[in-house]
């Protein structure tokens, strides 16, 4: 049972344009969500997070939107830069679990073309 899904394996955008990465979840107990970025041969690095009490969180060029009714979140990168080319994972957790356990999606490979 895939509780967190990233249905687009890959995405290609032109430098300077917007990148939109999507993530869907099925478990209504999830109340916080994180995005991680992963370069080849490196571990995932934290990018941005959002709590379920908010519907938007912004950090520089990165904005995450949360639609709880649709159980959907998206990561917007504006403007996209070639250095943003990486695999992006969304992850979800539940505060009620008291463990900090995260469930990860399959990842979306973003390619930003110069």
């Amino acid at each position, binding site marked *: 049972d895939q509780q967190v899904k*990233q249905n687009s394996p890959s995405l290609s955008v032109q430098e300077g344009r917007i990148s939109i990465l999507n993530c869907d979840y099925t478990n209504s107990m999830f109340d916080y969500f994180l995005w991680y970025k992963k370069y080849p041969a490196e*571990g995932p690095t*934290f990018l941005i997070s959002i709590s379920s009490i908010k519907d938007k969180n912004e950090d520089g060029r990165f904005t995450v939107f949360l639609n709880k009714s649709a159980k959907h979140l998206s990561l917007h990168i504006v403007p996209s830069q070639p250095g943003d080319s990486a695999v992006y*994972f969304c992850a979800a*957790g539940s505060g009620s679990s008291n463990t*900090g356990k*995260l*469930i990860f999606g*399959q*990842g979306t490979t973003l390619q930003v073309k110069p």
Partner: protein
Amino acid sequence: EAGVAQSPRYKIIEKRQSVAFWCNPISGHATLYWYQQILGQGPKLLIQFQNNGVVDDSQLPKDRFSAERLKGVDSTLKIQPAKLEDSAVYLCASSLAVKQYFGPGTRLTVT
């Protein structure tokens, strides 16, 4: 601040052999996680420690995988005997709260 350290970075073994991975978390992080990431998939939690106690090992194949975190700091993950399907990247992460910090991972190839 030093990040999460893992060794070795790469390991190639034959099936039925054993292998061990080492992780040193960020200083002061009480929670330590081991993940398995198979190519094309997201990280999957194998085991979670809080200090030196196991919080969640529901996804750990206990017939062949074992892990320990002596003294609540460093941790080792062992596979014995390895199978072809164990080929993956093994990631260690540590945290104080929600945000987890990952090491570079160990890429295991079982032939």
